[in-house]
Every structure is written in C-alpha cells, then in structure tokens.
C-alpha cells in the first residue's frame, strides 16, 4: 500500500538534476519580497517604505516602461484581423500599422495567427528577421539559420540539450554569469567551466584566462564543447571591444568550441565610445565561413527599448552547423514547443524591421525609442555614481544591458552574522536591504563572483522619478548597516 513517504514523486525521488538547478533571480529574495508586499497591503504604514521596488529582474514594463506603440498596434491587428478592412479601423490605428499587419498575415499560412506555424517559426517572418540581421551586420543572413523560440531562454535550453550528453561535457561561462546558463547546464546534467571577468579592468575578458580554464577542465577529463559570451554583459554590463571579440573567436576556432553569443541587450548601449558588433559580423569580417566555426547568436524581444518580456519573443541564428545537426535541432524544436508563440514571432520580426524614415509612424516611434534609451542611460549613470559615492561600495560602469553590479565591501562582523544566520553574506545584506527599504536586489552569489568578494545586482529599471528616492534609501540603509557591523 502506498504511504506518503513512498509516493511516486517526492523530493527523494525527483530527478536530481532538478534539485541541483538554481535560479537566484527568482529565488529566496523574491519570496521574501512577496511576503513583505502582502504585509504592506494588509498593514499600510507599518514599514518605513510604502512600496516594494523590484530591482531583481530585467522586467521593464512591470516598472512602468510603456510598450512601443507601433509594435502593439500591429500585434492587436494581427490578433483581430477581421477589423482590418473596416473603415472605423483607420480611426483607431495608424495606416502603416494596418499595412504592416496585412503584410505579416500575408506570410502566415491561411492568415491564421492562431495556427501552429512551422516549428522553426513562420518562414516569412524569419525572412524579415534575416533581412534585418543582414542590414545590421552588412553580411548575408539565411532565414533557414534562424530558429524562433519562446524567448531567448528557450533557445539557450535547446542548445544545451543538443550539446550536453553527460557530466563530462563542459560549457565555458563568464563569471559573473546570468544564472539562466548555470541553471540550464545543471538541468541538462553538464559541467560548467567558469572563466573569470576582471572586475579591476571594467569586467575585462582575457584570452589567457580562457586558455587557463580550458586546459584546467581538459586535465580533469572534461570535453569542453562551447563557450558562452554575453555581450553586452549580464550582470556586468560591459560591451566587448572588437579586438576582444576577434581574440575570443580565434580561441574558439582553435579549440573547436561552439560560440554561444547571448546578444539580447544589443539595443541597450549607454556609452558613446562603445558600439554593438554582433559576433556574426566579426566572424564574417575575419573571413570565416560555415566550415570554420559554429556560432549561435541569441536575441530577444524582452530587452532593448521594447521590453516585451511577457510576450516571449526570441530567436537564435545558428551558423556553421552540418545538415545532420540542423535536422536534429529542428526535431528538438518540434518536440520542445510544437511552435513558438505567434505574438512573439511577430514581435521579433518587428524589432528587426522597425519603422523607417518616411513611414507614418517613424517619428513617434523614434521619439519613444530615444526617450526610453536616453532615460535608461541617465538612470544607469545616476545609480553608478550613487553606488560609487558610498563608502565601501565600488561599482563598474554599466556600458550596456540593464543592471549594475556593485561590489560591497563587507566587514568581518557582518560576515560572521551572516554565517550565524545560515546565510551567505551578500544574501544577508540583500535581505536586510529589503527589510529596511523595500528594494529587491539579487545577491551576487547567484551570479558567481571571485571568492571573498560580495556583490548585488540591481536593475536600472525603476522609473526615473523614483531613482533619487531609491538612492537615498539605499545610502541610508548602507550607512546604518555598516555602523551596526563595523569592526
């Protein structure tokens, strides 16, 4: 007879890879925040802050960022195409949105946005994306190299499924690292080979470090299969120099590693002196073709200035794959999701083919885009300066992406208190920060850091008018925390 302890699916009998997987961005700190939020609702005024500010996750629209109007017009029309040919529609929608929706529906079989598309994503939309990539990079792009997915995260998971057969299969990842990668590798049962970014040089990436870690892994019997590079970086925000990218490519070519280039923040660059160069562009500019190197580049509708996280739009462009591998990738796509969500597919095509000068919506579109991007740049600077002005906190510039990753120099007493509370020091700090200010950040240990250093990741996404308040509450908390735990 079954009893609860011998039930089929318990903690004791669940897949151990599931147990091993961690995802700090949505971890303990968030559960704590949610409890506080409920408490705040039930007993307003009982805390020194009146709202929880979620700086733990890159979720712009949840913090008040408006969607791009043109994109939403097109999506609404694709959702409800029966109004496309009604006169009243022109009173509510811009003419170019109506035209674009019509164009999109024309490439969807049976004009049925509610039908399954090809598992790789609707061909006509992939063609639009390919054209957008070609125009961005100046090199041709093949629509068949593109796999649309439910957010870039799904594409990352697919690649891990393809690459990892056993715990001897290694994937090189930057530390600090977006925990999607550590979690996906753990779920697939592979081996994470860390390479450290150098905090003292603005999170610089040295090929000597790549070589060192590669050889170390090799000596442990690990077959290193791929190298993850996040550009612009998450959580670190640095934008790679072209020369750096070339060195990485040379290294991967030499060691036959697949490059997994996470480029989801390509539209989030805040410093004049840096610009985004896709790995595809650099690979091609070095004269490398498909037989020379395998590269998978990820992009997403969740970030940039469009911030459409909830729509789950994303894609990967995979070059340098043999036909046999491409077939398996296709098969995986079929099994994993039947087809990617249609609204996400449409968004991806809009992002790679936005309104152009001369289009009716171009002016309002560029005002919206520039408004959001310049605001993000200001917020990145304001928070960076604020962190650096605090004694005991140092913070590298956020050249891009959506986060700051300040280093908090924690006194010994604080570290001991954390230990006593059975908590990692940065988690201890983050929970205390939350209790005192309502600000939710993610402890750096969720991303990896050099042992003995402590960080938190804070997004730059709260609306601009909230930033001064956040800064002053953070400063006040930090001062009192340091006073409490000073050596």
């Amino acid at each position, binding site marked *: 007879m079954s009893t609860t302890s011998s039930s089929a699916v318990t903690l004791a009998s669940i897949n151990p890879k599931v147990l091993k997987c961690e995802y700090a961005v949505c971890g303990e700190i968030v559960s704590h925040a949610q409890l506080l939020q409920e408490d705040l609702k039930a007993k307003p005024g009982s805390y020194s802050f009146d709202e929880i500010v979620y700086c733990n996750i890159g979720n*712009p629209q949840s913090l008040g960022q408006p969607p791009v109007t043109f994109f939403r017009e097109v999506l609404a029309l694709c959702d409800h195409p029966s109004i496309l040919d009604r006169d009243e529609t022109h009173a509510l929608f811009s003419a170019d949105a109506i035209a674009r929706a019509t164009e999109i529906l024309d490439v969807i079989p049976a004009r049925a946005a509610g039908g399954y598309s090809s598992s790789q994503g609707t061909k006509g939309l992939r063609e639009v994306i390919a054209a957008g990539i070609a125009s961005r990079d100046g090199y041709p792009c093949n629509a068949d190299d593109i796999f649309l997915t439910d957010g870039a995260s799904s594409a990352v998971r697919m690649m891990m499924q393809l690459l990892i057969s056993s715990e001897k299969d290694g994937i090189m990842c930057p530390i600090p690292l977006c925990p999607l990668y550590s979690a996906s590798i753990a779920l697939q049962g592979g081996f994470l080979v860390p390479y450290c970014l150098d905090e003292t040089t603005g999170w610089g990436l040295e090929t000597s470090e790549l070589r060192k870690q590669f050889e170390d892994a090799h000596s442990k019997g690990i077959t290193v299969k791929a190298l993850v590079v996040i550009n612009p970086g998450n959580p670190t925000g640095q934008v790679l120099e072209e020369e750096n990218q070339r060195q990485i490519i040379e290294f991967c070519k030499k060691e036959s590693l697949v490059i997994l280039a996470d480029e989801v923040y390509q539209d989030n660059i805040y410093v004049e002196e840096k610009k985004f160069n896709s790995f595809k562009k650099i690979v091609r500019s070095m004269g490398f073709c498909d037989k020379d190197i395998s590269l998978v580049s990820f992009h997403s509708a969740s970030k940039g200035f469009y911030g459409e996280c909830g729509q789950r739009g994303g894609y990967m462009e995979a070059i340098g794959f043999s036909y046999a591998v491409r077939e398996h990738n296709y098969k995986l796509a079929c099994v994993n*999701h039947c087809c990617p969500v249609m609204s996400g597919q449409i968004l991806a095509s809009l992002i790679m083919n936005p309104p152009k000068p001369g289009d009716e919506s171009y002016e309002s579109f560029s005002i919206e885009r520039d408004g959001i991007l310049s605001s993000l740049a200001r917020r990145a600077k304001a928070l960076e300066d604020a962190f650096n002005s605090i004694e005991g906190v140092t913070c590298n510039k956020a050249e891009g992406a959506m986060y700051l990753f300040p280093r908090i120099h924690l006194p010994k007493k604080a570290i001991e208190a954390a230990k006593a509370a059975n908590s990692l020091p940065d988690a201890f700090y983050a929970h205390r920060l939350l209790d005192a200010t309502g600000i939710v950040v993610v402890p750096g240990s969720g991303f990896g850091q050099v042992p003995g250093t402590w960080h938190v990741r804070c997004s730059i996404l709260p609306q601009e008018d909230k930033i001064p308040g956040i800064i002053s509450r953070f400063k006040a908390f930090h001062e009192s925390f340091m006073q409490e735990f000073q050596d």
Partner: protein
Amino acid sequence: MPPKPLDYESLNENVKKVAYAVRGELYLRASELQKEGKKIIFTNVGNPHALGQKPLTFPRQVVALCQAPFLLEDPNVALLFPADAIARAKHYLSMTSGGLGAYSDSRGLPGIRNEIAEFIKRRDGYPSDPELIFLTDGASKGVMQMLNSIIRNDRDGILVPVPQYPLYSATISLYGGSLVPYYLEEEENWGLDLDNVKKSVATARANGITIRAMVIINPGNPTGQCLSEANLKEILLFCYRENLVLLADEVYQQNIYQDERPFISARKILLDMGPPISKEVQLVSFHTVSKGYWGECGQRGGYFEMTNLSPQTVDEIYKVASVSLSPNVPGQIFLGLMVNPPKPGDISYLKYSAESKAVLDSLRRRAHIMTDGFNSCKNVVCNFTEGAMYSFPQIRLPPKAIEAAKKAGKAPDVFYCLKLLEATGISTVPGSGFGQKDGVFHLRTTILPAEQDMPAIMASFKKFNDEFMEQYENYRGFSRI
C-alpha cells in the same frame, strides 16, 4: 582529428534517439511538394485555424485590446469593440503588473489561475487550489516539465498508451527514460484493458525497470476514445496500488462526439473515490487552448493542475518553471477567457455560443463523414472518432505492397502514406509514428478539413486506395494481424 562539438557524432545521444513523426518525413515531403506548387491538404497536425476554422470573435477582441491598451482611452473604440470585450480587457490588464509585456509570476498570473480553479470547481464539483495550477506555453511544455522531474535515469519507466501521441515517446527519449507501452484494444473501440497494462508492467519490471508514472490521454490521441467512469476508477486504483503518478492528458476534453461517454476528469473520479485513495494518488492533469472548439494552437496557452504532490515537490517544479521566467502572457489571457467565457446576458454571449456550437456540431459531423468514408473501403477498418480531432483507420495492406515498401526502404504504412500524398495531396501521419501492433498498419488524419471539402477528400482517398489495392493485389489476401 577529434570530432567538433556540433559534429553529428558529438551530439547528445538522447537527442539523436528522439523521433517525432507528426512533423517527420511525411510532413517534410508534403512541404517540398507544396513548394513545387502541388495543393496539399495538411491533415498531419491538429491545427484547426490553418484549415480554415475561424477563431472565436470574443477572445480575439479582448486580446487585441490588451495588446493595445491605448485603444481603451480612445473615444472611437466602441465603433469596433463591444462593451463586454472592453470591460474584460480592462479586467485582465488589471491582473497584470505592467500589461502583456511584463513577465508574470513564473507559474502564471494569479488572477488567471484563480479563474481556472473556479472552472475546475464548476466542472467537477470539487474545489481546486490555484496554487497548484501552473500555466505553461502550451500543455506540451507542462508535460515535458513533469516528465523531466520524474525521470532520473534509463531505469525509470513511464507507462504510455499505444498508439500514443509521440510527444510522450519523444520526451521520454530526450530525458533518457524508458517508455513502457501498454496496448489499447482496437477491436474494443480502442478500449483500455487493465490486463494489458499489468502485463506491460510485469515485463518491464522483469527487465529491471522501475515504473514511475502512467500516462492516459482522454479523449485519446490518435485514437479518440473516451474513457468510461469504470475505466478511470480502475486506473486510479491501479496507480494507488502500484505507487504511480497518473499523468492525465485531457486537452481534448471539449471535443466529444458521442453522448454515451461524456468527459469526466480523472480528478473528479479520484475525489469521488474518497480517502485514502483521494488523498494519496498523485495526479497531474493537463489542458490547453489549442484544441476544443478554440483551436488557438499558435497562442501557446496551457496549464497543469497537481493533486497530492508535496509542497516541497511543488516548490522544485516552481523553481524549474522560473528558469523559463514566465509563460507568455497573451496565451494566459486566452486560457482565462476559455475557462471563463461570456455568460448568458453578456452582450457577446449569443455570438460566442453560436460560434462555439457551430464548430462543435461541425466537428461531430466531420467525425462521422470521415469514419464512414474510411469504412466504405474494403480494406480499411476505422473506429469511430468518439472524441479529440483525429481519425486512425487501419489499412490492411496486401503482401505485395509490403514487399514493395521493403524494397523502397520504407515501413509499409510510410510507403502507403507517401503514395497517398503524391496521388492526392493529402498529408497524413503513418501509424508507426504513434505505435501499433506488429504487422498492423494505420494512418492518422485529422477531422479538421472544412466540412464542404470533406466529401471530395474522402472520394479522393477512396479512389487512391482502391487503385493502390488494384496495383498491389486483387481484393483477396490482405495482410491480417
């Protein structure tokens, strides 16, 4: 020269083992022919809108408004959208924290999960806990998540009905588990005989397999049969005794074409059975917006409901869900609308129920047209499609045809289906993609082509089939089981 990481030899072995016929050889060949200009009737996937079924109006109005909330402020919005759609859009937007573009809770918006819990309560007569309902991008993702949580190694076996929807076999391969097939009885209208299940379990255990879970698909895919109350009871009792988690794929619960066996959820039967069974048997139930009379496959809206899983297990499943951040929000709203449709008195109610009824009535008629059409061929035996969206006729192939198939290097049913495709443009899925007994051949087609096209399609099939039989045999001597 060592193999490169993405050379074929280095690929994850489990990926190589995966087979997924629904979009396999036949589909690819059909796509090629389509490119060459041939008219193809795609009956390989349950994809209603692609075959002309119109989306229901109300949900599309609501989601369009949610995508473009600035419309709600526009004085002209009432020209195009009825008041209840406007109100409902506001209702769903208020559930989000930032509209459709913000990640929701990784389990889905609490408001939608509440609506689903209410629906389940109305349907089954028992309360349902929204905390145990997780939304996913399509039910398939939920199935994969659960199997991933259950399968630890290649000795973990999952009981799967044969014929089955190949998501199960593919996923089990991908996660390195063991598929333990139990055969449905074609002669008993694809009935589930528990003795078959017990036999399969015994064989698997003798081979060192630990049976962890049992999958039921109700109504069945590709077989369409609806499980009786008695069937469900004995299955639940069996899971109780053998300590198995029951995975109840109920995505076709709205697609029922006979009146003798209406849909009853596994959960209702479980709770009807009372303690200790009702408190012990672990059950996960799956549902979707892709089927029913909604057919919104491209929106990727699905959910699973967990019963009798421990809070710690639920937490682990939540954790894995959080790695994917959140299910797509428009799909979640479709789910909410499906479980909470317009009610009598609502402005859109009459149109909504007329549209829904039209689709369902037509599906029922098409189920009959197709079954009868197949049965009118001497070498074809087809069980009636009691539910779901497919027809799964048995094609009795003469020995010469089987030989010809062998010569062509193809399985006999693949050979037949390819010939059918080339001759008529009808793209089906060979039965081998779903599993069948040795020497017995089927194909799966959907009942989704437009009703007015059905007679012509069935005539075209019959013409092809009779010519095929002429070519490979006279009507004596077909292969029997």
